[in-house]
């Protein structure tokens, strides 16, 4: 998918005006936040787990080369194959080729954000494969031809009515014609339509939440069961994932799993947590005949030793989105690419270029709630600041704001000048607001006054008033 992050401002304004979206966001926010809170309140070990997870991931990143090699070896040992992709284009090519070699016509997909990152569906469809998303949320947005708006709840922006309408339009060809009035009816119809797809598919593609070096396992964490049907029914199972998802041992994975589901949906564990180890064994009665893991780099290796290293700990739980007041106000699409919210505002500039996505790091109040809830202790505000530093260095942000900042810094660094300017400013504003106590219109300040008054100052600045007071005190002492 081509990034639309450049239009962030326009996208955000449109999102604010979209009442269906606003309702959906409100609903989702309360649900996610409350469920996570209940789950964490019941887990006194949360902080311990968090620091445990931090250590595991840091240890892994320090030795990532060795662990990836170990993972690769173990996948081979269990009869599978690992493929390496430096960038998204390579990942597309590898997977298209694998599907062609498998003689595939139809492909089912489990949810994968790395799949979104490499725009896998577009590539597969271009190559002539029928490609069906099987996670209900992903399926819905595939029908709507939209990108996901949340990393764990891709269709969170859609209302029940919109989904029913989509199904009506797209399921005609399968002879489903009745109007879907309830959520169970919608889910049931999706189950029926997708059931056939599962059975017909020649290749199943899933993502992976973790890759385990010790055993060569790829792990998926789901609730619907679609990932397991996608992996187990077709002749070929392809896993698409990225290099930073590697974890040393099964024990380490267990620690991360305890944090993941709770942070994401407030569950202790999801309905299905599955560890895949290669293709079917000789004596197995089902399962795929071939097993491939495609591992994407796409700038991650460059992050390893740089300022954005911490971001490689991310386990994609989505908690930072759910707790972000900006995300909750505008939704995921406004961010313009596949990763929204705080984690997206860190990742998108790294993967799509800072110039292209220059708004994202600035569209945050740095309120710190994301860092507070992040199970992997990722200092998201600091990483956003890091992008801002880069933007300043590269003179990417607007000349107007740079000029204003320069001027302001000039004053701030010359206290006497600063006093003078403050005093004039205070006098002026106090005069403007003297009858009402506040100012409702001010030249060059529409951004503030469009929705707020400006409380007017109190006649003089604090420092001047204090100086005067001190002087009076001294004089009265002398008298």
């Amino acid at each position, binding site marked *: 998918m081509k990034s639309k992050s450049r239009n962030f401002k326009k996208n955000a304004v449109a999102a604010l005006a979209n009442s269906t979206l606003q309702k959906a966001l409100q*609903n989702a926010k309360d*649900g*996610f936040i409350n469920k996570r809170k209940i789950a964490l309140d019941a887990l006194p*070990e949360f902080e311990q*787990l968090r620091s*445990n*997870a931090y250590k595991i991931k840091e240890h892994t990143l*320090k030795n*990532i*080369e060795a662990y*990836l*090699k170990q993972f690769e070896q173990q996948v081979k040992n269990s009869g599978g194959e690992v493929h*390496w*992709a*430096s960038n998204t284009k*390579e990942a597309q090519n*590898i997977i298209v080729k694998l599907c062609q070699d498998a003689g595939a016509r139809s492909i089912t997909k489990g949810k994968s954000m790395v799949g979104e990152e490499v725009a896998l569906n577009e590539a597969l469809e271009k190559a002539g494969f029928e490609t069906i998303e099987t996670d*209900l949320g992903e399926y*819905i947005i595939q029908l709507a031809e939209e990108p996901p708006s949340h990393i764990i709840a*891709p269709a*969170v922006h859609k*209302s029940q009515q919109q*989904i029913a309408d989509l199904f009506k339009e797209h399921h005609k060809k399968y002879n489903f014609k009745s109007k879907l009035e309830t*959520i*169970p009816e919608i*889910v*049931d119809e999706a189950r029926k339509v997708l*059931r056939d797809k*599962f059975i017909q598919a020649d290749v199943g593609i899933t993502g992976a939440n973790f890759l385990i070096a010790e055993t*060569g396992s790829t792990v998926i964490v789901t*609730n*619907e*069961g679609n990932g*397991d*049907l996608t*992996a187990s*029914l077709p002749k070929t199972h392809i896993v698409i994932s990225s*290099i930073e998802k590697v974890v*040393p*041992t099964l*024990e380490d994975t*267990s*620690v991360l799993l*305890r944090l993941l589901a709770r942070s994401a949906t407030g569950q202790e*564990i999801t*309905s*299905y*947590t*599955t*560890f*895949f*180890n290669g293709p079917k*064994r000789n*004596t197995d*009665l*089902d399962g795929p005949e071939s097993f491939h893991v495609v591992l994407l*780099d796409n700038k991650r*290796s460059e992050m*390893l*030793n740089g300022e954005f290293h911490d971001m490689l700990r991310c386990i994609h739980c989505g908690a930072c989105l759910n707790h972000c007041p900006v995300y909750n106000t505008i939704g995921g699409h406004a961010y313009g690419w596949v990763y929204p919210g705080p984690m997206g505002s860190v990742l998108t500039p790294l993967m799509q270029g800072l110039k292209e996505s220059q708004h994202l790091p600035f569209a945050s109040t740095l309120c710190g709630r994301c860092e507070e809830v992040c199970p992997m202790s990722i200092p998201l505000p600091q990483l956003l600041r890091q992008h801002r530093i880069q933007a300043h260095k590269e003179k990417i942000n607007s000349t107007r704001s740079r000029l204003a900042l320069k001027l302001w810094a000039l004053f701030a660094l010359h206290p006497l000048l600063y006093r003078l300017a403050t005093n004039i400013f205070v006098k002026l504003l106090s005069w403007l607001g003297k009858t009402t106590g506040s100012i409702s219109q001010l030249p060059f300040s529409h951004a503030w006054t469009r929705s707020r008054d400006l409380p007017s100052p109190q006649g003089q600045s604090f420092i001047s008033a204090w100086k005067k007071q001190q002087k009076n005190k001294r004089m009265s002492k002398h008298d």
Partner: protein
Amino acid sequence: MTNSRREIFSRLQQASSKTEQKTVTIKEYLSAHKRGVLPVYSENIVKRFISKVESVAATIESIKNITDLSTAIYKYMSCYNIEPKLVAAPSELLKQVKWQKEITVEYRAADAKDITTLTMAYAGIAETGSLVLCSGKESPTTLNFMPDNNICVIQKNKIYPYMEDTWDLLRKAGETMPRSINFITGPSRTADIEQTIQLGAHGPRRLHIIILESSPPR
């Protein structure tokens, strides 16, 4: 494509040579199998398992002996109006069951039309109320995901406190990992429509667990 492999590893190497000396070799780390933080709980593990299973919308009952299984399943099926047809995992134990005549049973992997399956858990996890199923010749994976109703038998002495116990079990068995290890916690569900939880998205709509109290003769 091997080029990309080389490129990726050379980038990683460059980055990691700048980081500090490795303190533990990865071999040591991997073989230590060190457990991380485990949430503490005080309940008896079977009790905990039962209450956790119930909290994720699955149903659960206990039977004394394997000879009680047929009656229990028949009762369950009648209660939910389920056609008494079972596709069962071809496990040693399940194959020994003498089914009452009302139930028809086939031992095989699942296919699209199967309504109810019967499986045998490798282990149970009390911490979360999860069943562990390992694929193999006695345990086809499709049985866990294809049907509307999944009934799973777990021996009481195979309920363990934590997920980590499964790892020790698998290692002790000494075999290579099975193709697929499934931790199953409740029936299939989705919240993709307006955050409303709906059971039975793609996998089973119902999960019924039967604890087998006696350990069967070897």
